[in-house]
């Protein structure tokens, strides 16, 4: 893991002092509301429905056990004993007090953390594959590049007042587990024929009000040019992105307005000025960064550990958990374990202080003290020896974090919605709970197989509903909550946006609608064909006919 250098530590400490001064000036009236707003947002502080919310950055989703314990400590002392892990791999505290925010930032600085640029019209937290550095299908570890871009983008003075927010994601594996095509810049690891390391670059992806799949703008960017090239993209965007309408201010709209070819021309012209120049990243820097992410010493590993094999053969619940929650590790005899934050009845992504402390303990016992946060709002232990899986599973069960549902319907992604967020048009958590309660039968869920369900409480799409195989969007109609259903969204290399199937539904109808969709799937699927593949094969009509062929739709609205 990356360890702060002096410059990083000084920055987070100075930032606390700076924000404390800004907060004092705001509270005593010397700093106006409009002047304070971007300052507090760039320190992660939102004004929410019930209380201010503080969003803490978890750079590329990587946490050390001592950092997670600090999250638990903050949850207890400054919040109501829990935190919410988000789809951008950050953690949010929903019940903080405005005037205590500088104290929380000071606590974060003691464990090399901060809330810098977790909101506002600037470059946000960099995200990546939660399996980075350990995935069996990885070309190379993207984390050193994430860290370089994190440092470069932190307080990059030219790019703190962009037209709108700006999100960057990296993927290192054959499979894209970071939804890079839904970011303002997405970078996917590539190794050229001559062995050079670099990235394929996508631009202009994003969800929100105008969802778009990112467009490829460069097949291969050599790694030393990463910052020169990103700077070119950012400068073109900063100068020419729209500022007259916040709903048209993301880079995706600029790409559309200039056309992809026109945008590429602008970026290449800009890059031509810096290409090969002093902004190139040196080999020494790469080596220094890579050293931070060297793998931990392997644990006691044996692929055929007898205790593990006995548990697998004799314990169905354990075997199911292994089937769903354990993934292939780069090293033989090791495993990557996903901890489900999707237990029925608990808001997706929420974890209590006790759970965070418990996970920190388990990470130290079984995973070299390291935890990852996934954009599906789960936690990951990346370095577990297979022989220790039974003991880890017992520990997770005691914490309520062993639901064997990763990738299944009940592992749904969901924003905080109208219960907390002042932007939301509708609540999302109660609908998520109703779905989880209705589909609580593990045999049925396992039979259905991999299925991604995403729900957002408004068009800002924090629940990424456009990329759910089944997406649910809360909408407001005459002050009533309605829910629009989309089908066919997908992340990864076959990325696609879901399409709306028809008029929206009342909250109470949603579990029945899902049941109908699932029955259609079960009726049409081929042997081993997962939901999204079957849907792509037959199209939406059969699903629409089933859902709207009943009386139910009459109350709905478009």
């Amino acid at each position, binding site marked *: 893991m990356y360890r702060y250098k002096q410059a990083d530590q000084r920055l987070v400490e*100075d930032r606390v002092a700076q924000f404390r001064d*800004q907060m004092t000036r705001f509270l005593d009236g010397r700093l106006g509301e409009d002047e304070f707003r*971007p300052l507090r947002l760039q320190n992660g502080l939102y004004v929410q429905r019930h209380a201010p919310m503080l969003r803490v950055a978890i750079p590329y989703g990587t946490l050390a056990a001592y950092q997670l314990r600090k999250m638990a400590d903050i949850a207890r002392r400054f919040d109501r004993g829990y935190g919410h892990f988000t789809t951008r791999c950050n953690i949010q505290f929903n019940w903080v007090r405005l005037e205590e925010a500088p104290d929380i930032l000071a606590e974060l600085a003691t464990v090399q953390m901060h809330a810098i640029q977790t909101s506002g019209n600037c470059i946000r937290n960099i995200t990546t594959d939660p399996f980075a550095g350990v995935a069996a299908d990885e070309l190379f570890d993207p984390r050193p590049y994430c860290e*370089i871009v994190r440092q470069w983008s*932190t*307080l990059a*003075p*030219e*790019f*703190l007042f962009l037209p709108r927010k700006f999100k960057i994601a990296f993927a290192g594996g054959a499979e894209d587990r970071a939804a890079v095509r839904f970011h303002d810049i997405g970078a996917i690891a590539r190794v050229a024929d001559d062995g050079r390391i670099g990235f394929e670059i996508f631009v202009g992806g994003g969800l929100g009000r105008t969802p778009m799949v990112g467009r490829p703008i460069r097949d291969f960017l050599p790694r030393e040019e990463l910052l020169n090239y990103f700077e070119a993209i950012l400068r073109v965007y900063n100068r020419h992105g729209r500022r007259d309408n916040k709903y048209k201010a993301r880079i995706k709209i600029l790409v559309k307005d200039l056309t992809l070819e026109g945008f590429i021309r602008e970026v290449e012209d800009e890059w031509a000025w810096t290409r090969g120049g002093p902004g190139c990243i040196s080999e020494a820097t790469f080596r220094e960064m890579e050293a931070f992410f060297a793998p931990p010493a392997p644990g006691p590993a044996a692929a055929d550990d007898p205790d593990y094999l006995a548990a697998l053969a004799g314990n169905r619940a354990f075997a199911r958990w292994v089937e769903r929650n354990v993934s292939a590790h780069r090293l033989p005899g090791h495993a990557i374990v996903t901890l489900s934050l999707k237990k029925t009845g608990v808001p997706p992504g929420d974890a209590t202080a006790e759970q965070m402390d418990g996970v920190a303990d388990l990470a130290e016992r079984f995973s070299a003290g390291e935890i990852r946060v996934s954009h599906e709002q789960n936690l990951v232990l990346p370095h577990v020896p297979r022989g220790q899986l039974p003991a880890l599973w017992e520990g997770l069960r005691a914490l309520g974090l062993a639901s064997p549902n990763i990738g299944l319907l009940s592992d749904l992604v969901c924003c905080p919605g109208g219960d907390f967020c002042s932007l939301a048009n509708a609540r999302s958590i109660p609908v998520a709970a109703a779905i989880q309660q209705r589909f609580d039968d593990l045999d049925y869920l396992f039979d259905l197989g991999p299925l991604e369900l995403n729900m957002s409480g408004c068009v800002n799409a924090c629940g990424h509903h456009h990329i759910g195989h089944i997406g649910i969007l809360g909408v407001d109609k005459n002050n009533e909550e309605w829910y629009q259903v989309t089908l066919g969204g997908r992340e990864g290399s076959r990325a696609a946006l879901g399409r709306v199937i028809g008029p929206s539904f009342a909250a109470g109808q949603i579990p029945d609608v899902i049941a109908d969709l699932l029955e259609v799937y079960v009726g049409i699927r081929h042997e081993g064909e997962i939901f999204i593949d079957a849907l792509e094969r037959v199209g939406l009509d059969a699903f629409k006919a089933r859902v709207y062929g009943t009386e139910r739709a009459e109350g709905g609205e478009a």
Partner: protein
Amino acid sequence: MSTLIRHGKVVDEHWAWITADLPEQPAGREAPARVLLPLAVWLARRDDLDPQHAGVWLGPDDEPGALLPWLADVPLVAIHFPLFTDGRGYSLAHLLRRRHGYTGELRALGDVLVDQLALMAQCGFDSFSLRADQPPAAALAALAGGLRSPWPGPAMP
């Protein structure tokens, strides 16, 4: 009356900021000694002006490359921030300093607030015409103690 800070000190303002074309001077009143003109006006009137007494200011939409042939001689370039949240001026400053090698005075003009001064300085501004309500002492302190990105980028020339 806004305060002018130049090279870390509060100094007197000698330039008249002209926001449209050069005004006709009313009879009996002296023309200002030094004028700061919009880019389009400066380019159009350049031949009539005393080069040492005519500075140029850019709006966020302007193309700084248009000044390239005269950058060595122009006595003052200013960049206007219509709103402090409009970040285009930072890129213009970067281009003038880093790309086009401008070494003269580079001034931030308009909605120039204490909390952004250090960022502006890092992009190459060395003088600041503060918004009228901004306290000069706080501005000097902000310029002396700005936070920096941890990334060691190429040094400012």
